[in-house]
């Protein structure tokens, strides 16, 4: 077996951004949302990701603006910590270690120094019961704080974060679970409980789904399973409470939200319509329809200007006061399953897979961003459960990305299968695909496989589709016969069958001269030029599951996997079996840029990966248990720039990268150690000027500037990150009057250390120094900042030096000195 110590399986992008309610910053310029293990900060006007707030080690379960400082945000995570961030600059300020997984987080401006968190009732994680607890923030200025001081407020609350909200002036907190609404008054220390009957006469479900409290009035709006919204009033009495009902939604209301002034109530649900109700004039309502997918969360900016809705298709929509969609932030859409295979668009190098219903999404792997959606079905999507919709089930690109073929199908219970084969031509002008030909009913039964001919040089392309009706058809681009007004269109060129068996998979050889189609146990090899059956290959028992031609130097081999755990390799020159091995291959695919093949084998509940060359008996790389469950979708994506790895085990990753989807729809990839290090080094982000909106253009320009600066720095010295900051330190020293400086012997050791290049922990060193710079600029929140930066510096240096306390003292001294005279500082800032 080959060593694989330096290749790891990692998650790559595509995490949910609609998991929790997004948060709009005070000036509505930034949008924070929990995304996997980090918090993403987007610009609400340009849709660009400004920062990734990284630090949590598990799923982030809540993001909240700090009620006492609007430039800071709290985030809580299932790793049992609450972190405080400066989100404009992307700096971690404080970490509170709670020790239990936290499911959601609440705060109110009227409860200073207290955070409200939802944790499990029992200490074990499996418990289904949750409680709301008040977490008293420790006053310690340290960066890492243990926060164990919490008291339970409400027992038995819902884990859904939308079901708890603070009331007017923080006087009470309302929580809904099941059929009960509970309101807890902080002053009286008393809670009231209101219950609804499970079902009313009409069979509607009264279960609470979400709630929101009016900011100025004693009113609680609750959303219900059956689409009703109830407005509760007078709830500070056990018996005299009242509620009124609003009904527009036809199924569960997933989010309700009052605007900050309390004039409007927003609600949304599966209909994907944002409804705006006037408070106290509930008959008047405004609609914003066709938002694309079911609304899961609604957020409102503190000034009420912008609304932000999160949608079930992993999308955030920024709406300007309920009339206009101003920005759409779209992540990777993960449906129930990927019916089309994973593909890479040869032009944009984007990953292509099923997206929204009836769409194909083009997802940039490098930028972790959806590039665009291609509407395949082109029909109005009706948001109604239980309705059979058209689904895109197959898609294929030709080699140059000029043509895209898609198959959509819709199967109703009793009627016949509806199939459409669509061929899309790439339009240079609009930079997207334009529908060229629609073939309705290309086959009589489901299409099992579809592929384009691979020839790169020839003018004509060919598409082959195989279907359960026992036929395979070849489609070719035909010139319009006589009429000039139509362009070329695709038409059927050949229909083939083999002993009325069902074709399962098809594959073209690299040069397009051979077509292999498997009919159960038999592989037939055809010549696409003359449609002659050249030969048949068979290795019973077991039907063929996957077929793959070798590439480049191995193009004489045809590989197939059978349902009876056999991987066979035929030599096409001799038409004999070259070798075969017994393994349960769930997926076999070939790298288009090299002769390597990857085989995913499911073995005892998890999947192993083998990368091999068909001509060599020994695998290049193998990795046991890359994930649990079966891998059925994977793709080789070409790299933007080749990796220069010489190690044998990682050479296969040089030209392309292998991405795969696990059973739970996680997108994973393989990463080498060298690459990981490089990524880490480049993760130092640009500090973006607040006055400039973060546009792609700005990022480009900023990068350019940075490079220029870098060049200048290089002329000074080889080390780039140390010196600019070092020079600042020198300037500080030189410009400060000598009589206010501490003694030279005191400063000398510090100065020398600042020039040292630390080898082991250069990264953290840099970071700490960078933060030092930041803290220089902000004098107001100095105490806290200082504590945090010093804390980190301490951890960084703790390993190498035995005298951290001295350093700390020295630094404090230096700061004290600096505070004496600010004139030199201002000039420094100008420079």
């Amino acid at each position: 077996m080959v060593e694989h110590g330096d290749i790891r399986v990692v998650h790559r992008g595509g995490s949910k951004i609609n998991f929790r309610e997004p948060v709009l910053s005070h000036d509505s310029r930034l949008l924070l949302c929990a995304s996997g293990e980090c918090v993403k900060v987007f610009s609400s006007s340009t849709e660009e990701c400004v920062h990734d707030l990284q630090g949590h080690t598990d799923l982030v379960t809540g993001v909240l603006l700090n009620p006492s400082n609007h430039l800071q945000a709290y985030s809580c995570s299932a790793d049992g910590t609450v972190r405080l961030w400066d989100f404009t600059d992307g700096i971690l300020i404080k970490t509170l270690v709670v020790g239990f997984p936290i499911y959601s987080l609440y705060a109110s401006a009227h409860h200073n120094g207290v955070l409200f968190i939802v944790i499990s009732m029992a200490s074990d994680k499996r418990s289904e019961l949750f409680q709301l607890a008040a977490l008293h923030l420790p006053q310690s200025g340290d960066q890492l704080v243990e926060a164990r001081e919490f008291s339970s407020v409400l027992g038995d609350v819902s884990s859904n974060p939308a079901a708890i909200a603070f009331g007017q002036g923080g006087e009470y907190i309302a929580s809904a679970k099941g059929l009960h609404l509970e309101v807890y008054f902080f002053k009286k220390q008393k809670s009231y409980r209101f219950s609804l009957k499970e079902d009313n006469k009409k069979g509607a479900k009264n279960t609470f789904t979400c709630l929101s409290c009016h900011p100025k009035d004693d009113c609680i709006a609750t959303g219900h399973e059956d689409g009703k919204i109830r407005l509760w009033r007078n709830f500070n009495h056990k018996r005299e409470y009242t509620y009124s009902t609003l009904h527009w939604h036809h199924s569960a209301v997933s989010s309700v939200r009052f605007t900050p002034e309390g004039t409007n109530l927003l609600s949304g649900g599966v209909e994907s319509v944002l409804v705006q109700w006037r408070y106290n004039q509930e008959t008047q309502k405004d609609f914003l329809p066709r938002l694309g997918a079911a609304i899961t969360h609604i957020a409102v900016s503190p000034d009420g200007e912008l609304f932000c809705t999160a949608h079930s298709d992993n999308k955030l929509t920024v709406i300007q006061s309920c009339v206009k969609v101003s920005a759409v932030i779209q992540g990777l859409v993960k449906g129930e399953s990927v019916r089309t295979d994973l593909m890479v668009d040869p032009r944009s190098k984007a990953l292509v897979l099923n997206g929204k219903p009836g769409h194909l999404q083009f997802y940039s792997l490098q930028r972790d961003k959806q590039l665009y959606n291609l509407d395949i079905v082109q029909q109005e999507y009706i948001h109604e459960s239980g309705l059979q919709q058209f689904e895109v089930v197959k898609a294929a690109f030709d080699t140059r990305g000029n043509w895209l073929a898609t198959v959509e199908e819709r199967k109703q219970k009793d009627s016949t299968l509806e199939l459409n084969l669509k061929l899309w031509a790439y339009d240079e002008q609009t930079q997207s695909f334009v529908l060229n030909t629609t073939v309705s009913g290309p086959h009589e039964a489901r299409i099992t496989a579809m592929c384009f001919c691979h020839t790169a040089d020839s003018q004509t392309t060919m598409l082959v589709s195989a279907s359960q009706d026992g036929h395979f058809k070849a489609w070719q681009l035909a010139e319009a016969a006589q009429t000039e007004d139509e362009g070329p269109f695709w038409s059927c060129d050949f229909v083939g069958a083999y002993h009325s068996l069902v074709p399962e998979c098809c594959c073209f050889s690299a040069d397009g001269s051979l077509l292999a189609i498997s009919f159960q146990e038999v592989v037939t090899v055809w010549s696409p030029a003359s449609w002659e059956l050249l030969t048949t290959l068979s290795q019973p028992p077991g039907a063929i599951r996957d077929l793959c031609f070798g590439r480049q130097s191995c193009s004489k081999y045809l590989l197939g996997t059978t349902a009876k755990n056999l991987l066979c390799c035929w030599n096409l020159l001799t038409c004999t079996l070259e070798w075969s091995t017994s393994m349960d291959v769930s997926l076999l695919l070939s790298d288009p840029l090299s002769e390597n093949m990857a085989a995913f084998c499911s073995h005892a509940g998890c999947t192993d990966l083998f990368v091999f060359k068909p001509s060599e008996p020994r695998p290049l790389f193998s990795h046991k248990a890359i994930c649990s469950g079966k891998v059925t979708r994977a793709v080789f994506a070409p790299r933007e720039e080749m990796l220069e790895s010489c190690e044998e085990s990682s050479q296969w990753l040089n030209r392309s990268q292998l991405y795969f989807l696990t059973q739970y729809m996680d997108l994973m990839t393989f990463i080498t150690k060298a690459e990981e290090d490089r990524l880490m080094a480049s993760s130092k982000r640009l500090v973006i000027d607040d006055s400039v909106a973060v546009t792609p253009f700005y990022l480009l320009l900023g990068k350019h500037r940075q490079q220029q600066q870098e060049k200048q720095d290089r002329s000074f010295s080889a080390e780039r990150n140390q010196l600019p900051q070092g020079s600042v330190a020198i300037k500080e020293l030189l410009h400060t009057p000598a009589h206010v400086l501490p003694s030279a012997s005191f400063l000398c050791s510090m100065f020398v250390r600042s020039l040292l290049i630390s080898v082991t922990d250069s990264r953290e060193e840099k970071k700490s120094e960078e933060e030092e710079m930041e803290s220089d600029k902000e004098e107001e929140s100095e105490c806290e900042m200082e504590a945090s930066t010093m804390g980190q510096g301490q951890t960084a240096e703790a390993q190498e030096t035995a005298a951290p306390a001295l350093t700390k003292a020295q630094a404090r001294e230096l700061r004290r000195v600096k505070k004496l005279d600010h004139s030199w500082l201002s000039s420094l800032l100008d420079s």
Partner: protein
Amino acid sequence: MASFKPTKIQVYPKLGEKVTQDTLYWKNYKAPVQIKEFGAVTNIDFSPVAPHNYAVTAFTRIHIYGPFSQEPVKSFTRFKDTAYCGRFRSDGQLLVAGCEDSVVRLFDVSGKVALRMFKGHTKAVRVTDFTSDRYHILTGSDDYTCRLWDIPNSTELTSYQEHTDYIRCGITSKLNRDLFITGSYDHTLKLFDARVNKSVMTMDHGQPVESLLLYPSEGLLVSAGGRYVKVWDLLKGGQPLVSLKNHHKTVTCLCLSSNGQRLLSASLDRHVKVYNTTNYKVVHNFDYAASILSLGLAPDDESIVVGMTNGILSIKHRKSSEETKEISGQQKRRPAYRVFVKGKNYVPKQDDYLVSKPVKQHLAKYDKQLKRFNVSKALDTALETWTRFRKPEITVAVIKELDRRGTLKNALAGRDERGLSQLLNFLVGNLVDPRFAPVLVPATEMILDIYQSVIGQSPVVDVQLQRLQDLLEREIGYQQDLLEVLGMLDTMAKMNTSPLTPHPPT
């Protein structure tokens, strides 16, 4: 926010022939004028000089018709037996014709009596033509010989006896006075040079040759015989270029359109086919009532004259340009173009502030109603009389969309007598159309389910339902017949592929 996506109207391939430039050109003829001749019309020849009269050889007479007259301008009746192949000389002054009695007669177009009689053939003369120097006549006869005659002396110049069967067609070169080609029932075409005493080129057509045609450049020769039309390259020594088999009976006559771009062939299968001479594809087709023996095309394609075995001469005249304009003028009663572009071509000045207006999406009425989820109303709109009869695909598309939305039942239900009768009327008209059946059959079942309780209450609806039942019974009968035929065909196909390939054990 995405905009509403309108209902997709399925585009069905147009049945019947496609409208091309050729179709438009060859359809642009008036209704045919039909003249009854005394017997089968064997030859039609247009005079090369204006006003382009044409000689029609039928039974024992040759009639000369003017371009627009329906009565013969002139008749030559002095034939003892059936006349053949009346042809004009290139100056339009003389006409030559063969006869069953083996005598070749030469007429002055203005006279009545034959100027010359050429005797020498021993059997019927079926082929006559003038050479390009105008002084000689070529004849071909059933006595297997072809001869050249001198007009002034009325003497026989040469005789070639190379064919071994009847000579039924021949043509002289327009560019060289010595060259001529004959086609015979011995399947061969022979190119003769009058300066030598034997044929210089022989081509095998493979079928008894019925007609010959030389391209204006005289590099290519077209021959017709049997079901085939063949094109030969004379400059490459008679190499066959194309063989066309588009008729299903013997091709009798060939003709070239005025610009030389189209070739016409007439056949006993009652069709005239028009070929494109660059790719030899059939671009148009004329149907006639009887088997066609002769075909003539006036210069500039002004008229197509066709003679048939039943003695009918059919003349089609091209529509004049005013007539075609008149028809198109009738349709043009819409607001002028400038009404629509009013103000759209305004170019903003330098300091103008441009207020952009969102582009308003235009939706059809049924789409507007679908957008508001007014399903019944949308179906009503789609069932409006004009749509229902002229654009049934729209109605079907709306029904399909409603079915996709799962609201078809709601849309179909709750209709009064008139509405239901309208709906049933549409179904009766379109249910068995194979393009619409997959959509309409479930809809019909749904209607029957919904309205089964009201059957027998309204005579109007009952009549429609009865019609629907009849239609379905008839259709089922057809399907059964078709399946039977299919079964028979399968049996025959299986019998023909005798060496059965063994099936693999499954």
